[in-house]
């Protein structure tokens, strides 16, 4: 059956990526959007778009609209309803094609306990696991507590010793319940030095199953992948054929149709691998596979649904070169990678030839706590892993993104890391290398960048302060102190003052152990920033000022300085001794009352954000003198929660 019109039941980068293939095939695309996404990038790029008032999980509305618009098929993307067998069935019974595997496959593989039992039967190794806490000692610590219906790290806990087990199980259950409506959990062994390796499979309606090699996604934070690549730098060809064979065996056994992923845990020390789960959807990290195999997975998914046979055999599929993907998140790596919200004040990137951007945002978009904070995936292809790494690093370094904190600079540090370069990308990578991954730009660089920021500000005031603008800036026939700009960076205060002399600007750092004076000339504002000569070096930088922050990109990544306003906002009163929200979220539980005595480290408030629970603990001993929030309140990042004296 020929498909002509496809509804993409998703948002952001994945919706856009699917729409692109639909367009390339000459087909028609329909996007859906919720209140928050009226101006979403996927809405602008689809042929048609339809409003779903209750959002991306409203199954009946989506099907209803699809019928009204004569849609032939629905592509669910990842997340949302992509692995919801009920929805899949409803779609099929509405005579609309489902771009994905059968509901039975989704159901079977969606249940981690059942899927592992199947593997055991097939002789595919799986990790010992139990649903009974009493069996914990049999597994041995550390133990991973996981939601049965889980994914994406939600409802997941690592337990180091017995005394923490009960609390972890309770928390995991609560999260599982709120995320998936299913509080079942299980326990399994946690392998410290491991890799996450997965195999991409494709199956058609005629029993043909092929694999498209592996992806390694071991670098994770908060149990979510941030760097993925293909091929894995660790697998030897024999290990590769072993693991891919295992995946094809399993997929064939269940008659897998469409694209899917078989995930394994790989033990770095023993070369053993264990089956984890099958993801019955297109994965976030699918582009690395596409780049090394030159297969468009979405295109293949559509062809399969149209009833076509796979057009290639296993031997036709080659793994060429190397592809690395990084996930750009709105988050603060220094605050335990917790999500950030804000508005994209500037976004520009080189979009180099060997780099693919799967992006879901544009300038001025507001990133809210309502959706996943992933902004984009950037994937580089190289003939070698080294080349791909270098291309990706340069692409990120030249990407200017302002207005919201992201993990971009952290990702650059990962790509620069010598352990990463050597392929030592085991799951403990971030923890192991953390000292090197959180280093800042050198003091000298910071000094130069602050000078550039100051000069940019100086040029910018010309545009803003137009009165008497025909005179040289800061001109006086008498005498006044020098103009200055103050910055805060890494909790340190910086002050730069400047004077104009003979078409040049002398700029120096004040209030410091060492004064460094620079001379700037030929200063010109560019559409995105500034170009100038600073101490005999030609420099260009992209600059964005947004609220109190100034973000600069000099071709070596973005750096953000807080520009201290000369005058403070009378409304900004900081309450001393107050505890603030580490991220935007909802108040789930308040353990204390006004007047309570608290000891240091005591859990005071539980905040739910991004479907995860965060405990706010007392940072000092004292008495609670004020509680500013109530259970159920939605709070902003930095909001005062309570005051302890």
């Amino acid at each position, binding site marked *: 059956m020929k498909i002509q019109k496809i509804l993409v039941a998703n948002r952001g980068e994945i919706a856009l990526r699917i729409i692109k293939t639909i367009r390339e095939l000459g087909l028609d695309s329909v996007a859906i959007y919720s209140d928050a996404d009226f101006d979403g990038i996927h809405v602008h790029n689809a042929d048609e778009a339809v409003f779903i008032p209750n959002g991306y999980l409203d199954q009946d509305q989506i099907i209803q609209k699809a019928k009204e618009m004569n849609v032939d098929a629905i592509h669910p993307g990842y997340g949302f309803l992509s692995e919801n067998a009920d929805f899949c069935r409803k779609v099929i019974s509405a005579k609309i094609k489902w771009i994905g595997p059968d509901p039975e496959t989704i159901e079977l593989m969606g249940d981690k306990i059942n899927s592992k039992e199947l593997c055991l039967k097939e002789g595919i190794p799986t990790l010992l696991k139990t649903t009974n806490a009493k069996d914990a000692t049999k597994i041995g610590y550390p133990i991973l507590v996981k939601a049965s219906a889980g994914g994406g790290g939600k409802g997941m806990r690592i337990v180091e010793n017995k005394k923490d087990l009960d609390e972890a199980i309770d928390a995991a259950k609560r999260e599982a319940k709120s995320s998936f409506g299913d509080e079942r959990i299980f326990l399994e062994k946690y392998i410290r030095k491991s890799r996450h390796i997965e195999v991409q499979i494709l199956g058609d309606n005629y029993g043909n199953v092929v694999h498209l090699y592996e992806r390694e996604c071991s670098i994770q934070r908060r149990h979510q992948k941030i760097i993925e690549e293909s091929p894995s730098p660790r697998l030897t060809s024999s290990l590769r054929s072993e693991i891919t064979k295992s995946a094809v065996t399993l997929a064939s056994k269940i008659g897998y149709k469409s694209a899917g992923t078989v995930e394994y845990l790989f033990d770095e020390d023993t070369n053993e691998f264990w089956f984890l789960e099958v993801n019955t959807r297109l994965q976030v990290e699918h582009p690395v596979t596409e780049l090394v195999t030159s297969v468009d997975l979405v295109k293949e998914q559509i062809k399969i649904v149209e009833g076509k046979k796979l057009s290639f055999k296993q031997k036709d599929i080659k793994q060429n070169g190397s592809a690395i993907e990084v996930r750009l998140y709105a988050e603060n790596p220094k605050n335990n990678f917790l999500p950030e919200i804000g508005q994209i004040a500037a976004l520009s990137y080189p979009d180099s030839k060997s780099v693919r951007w799967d992006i879901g945002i544009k300038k001025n978009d507001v990133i809210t706590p309502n959706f996943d904070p992933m902004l984009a995936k950037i994937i580089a292809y190289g003939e070698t892993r080294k080349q791909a790494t270098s291309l990706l690093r340069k692409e990120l370094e030249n990407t200017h993104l302002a207005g919201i904190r992201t993990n971009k600079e952290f990702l650059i540090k990962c790509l620069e890391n010598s352990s990463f370069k050597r392929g030592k990308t085991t799951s403990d990578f971030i923890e192991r290398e953390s000292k090197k991954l959180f280093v800042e730009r050198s003091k000298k660089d910071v000094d130069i960048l602050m000078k550039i920021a100051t000069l940019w500000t100086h040029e910018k005031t010309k545009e803003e*302060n137009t009165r008497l603008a025909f005179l040289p800036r800061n001109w006086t026939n008498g005498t006044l102190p020098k103009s200055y700009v103050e910055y805060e960076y890494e909790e340190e205060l910086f002050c730069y003052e400047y004077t104009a002399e003979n078409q040049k600007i002398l700029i120096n750092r004040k209030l410091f152990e060492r004064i460094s004076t620079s001379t700037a000339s030929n200063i010109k504002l560019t559409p995105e920033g500034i170009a100038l000569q600073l101490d005999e070096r030609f420099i260009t930088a992209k600059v964005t000022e947004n609220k109190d922050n100034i973000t600069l990109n000099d071709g070596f990544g973005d750096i953000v300085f807080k520009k201290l306003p000369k005058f403070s906002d009378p409304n900004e009163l900081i309450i001393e001794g107050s505890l603030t929200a580490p991220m935007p979220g909802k108040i789930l539980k308040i353990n204390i009352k006004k007047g309570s005595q608290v000891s240091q480290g005591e859990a005071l408030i539980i905040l739910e954000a991004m479907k995860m629970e965060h405990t706010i603990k007392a940072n000092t001993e004292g008495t609670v003198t004020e509680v500013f929030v109530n259970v159920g309140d939605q709070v902003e990042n930095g909001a005062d929660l309570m005051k302890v004296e």
Partner: protein
Amino acid sequence: MYKNIAPILKTNLDTSSDIFIKNKDMMLDKINYLNSLLKEVEIGGGQYHLDRLAAKGKMPVRDRVKNLLDQDTPFLELSPYAAWGTSYTVGGGCVGGVGVVAGKECVIFANDPSVLGGAMSVYVWEKWMRCIEVARDNRLPFINLVESAGADLRGRQDTSNNKARQLDNFHFASSGRTFYEMTELSKLKIPVISIVFGSSTAGGAYQPGMSDYNIFIKNQSKAFLAGPPLVQMATGEISDDETLGGAKMHSEVSGFSDYLAEDEVDALRICRNVVSHLNIVKKSNFALTTFNDPLYDSDGLLGLFSEDLKSQVDIREVIMRFIDGSQFEEFKPLYGPSMVCGWANVFGYPVGILGNNGPIYPETAEKSTSFIQLCNQTNTPLVFLHNVTGFLVGKEYERQGIIKKGAQLINTVSNSTVPHISFILGASYGAGTYAMSGKAYNNRFLFTWPTAKIAVMGPKQFAGVMSLVRKAKAKRKGEEFDEKLDKQLVELVENAAEQESLALSASSMLTDDGIIDPRDTRNVLGFCLSVIDNSTIKGAEGYGVFRL
């Protein structure tokens, strides 16, 4: 925007000549000395007092001014060299000038608490009056940064110094005029804003008392008619500063303060907010033109004048170095050539320029009179460039009616109602000073070059005249004339007259708005033109232009 189509002036200046180089060295020496004075001005009452104030969380006065202004905007300071050569601190213990606050040009007058606790010396009083005048004439908001111990009760301090004595001839009965003038500003709908930075006691209390807006600073501002000691003496009541006249009391109880600021910076923020709501619309009076820089380097201005002012200066060499594109439309170039008159633009603003190219002849006076009338007809501001030894004297010129013709010119200058901006470059002697719109002739602004000399006549002539008078007196009385003593006296008088005539003496006594680096002439003039453009500019009415 219109295009400037006036022809370009050509230079004949040889900047490599010995005389130019000698003059330039002399000028640079003078500029260096002025710059060293500015360094003194910067530290006001001295580091000890600045540190003492800083310990109380107080900014130096110039930091207050700087932080009040819009970032990177220019500042036209008025009389920075006030009180030079007296026992008072150079600068006079206060800062005055015009700057940009929240996009608007404002006059700022600030007491310097590091100098005698900000007490009102006669120099403070003079500068304050001048600032009020600039605000009134040009209709600019007037901002007071108040921190004053009140009147300088010590009275006359410096009896040995002529200048100080002249200014110190001041009776209490004459005081209070500043308060009168502040209320007058308000009546003219020129906003008056005060930030009280410290104590403002007795007379000082009327500074905010006569303001439209008052900003007080928490735990810092105080205002009372009488402080606790005086109150105790007068009524026996025991009180403390805060309850008697603290910022909080005045903001919450007496209502004397309109805004209570957290600290000094916050007070400046509030002041900027006040200015931003004043609903000032600046509508230009002029057909502005697009503009280019002068074609000739302003360094050429440094070597034109010699120390004794005897070098012949073609005033066009000055004009072409500060006007747009060096483009000048000269009026009557063939008639009365000792006054160069003509039209030009400065940063796009149209101006009529009168510059001396020698003493004033009868026909020079006629031509100048006509030119001033023409500029009044077209509401064009006038720029006077002084380098004049006076009106020509002698039988022939008296017969030609030099008094009549000079009187015509002085009459027209007096009754001209377009703004006058004067620059005294070299000599400004005798009635020439009046004819060129000197200090007494209601200029909007008057600046001097370091080479300026202002006097009734040249010091040498003055000493010679005095010698002749003495000789005549001796003859009349039949006394023997002591030639040797006379020679000594001539030298003494000449030196004294020379000193009195110098730019710094004039600046010290606030008879100008300051001495400028000649290279800054264009910037100063441009600033002044922008300032005058805040008021309505209208030339004199009554008669048409006389064909003279």
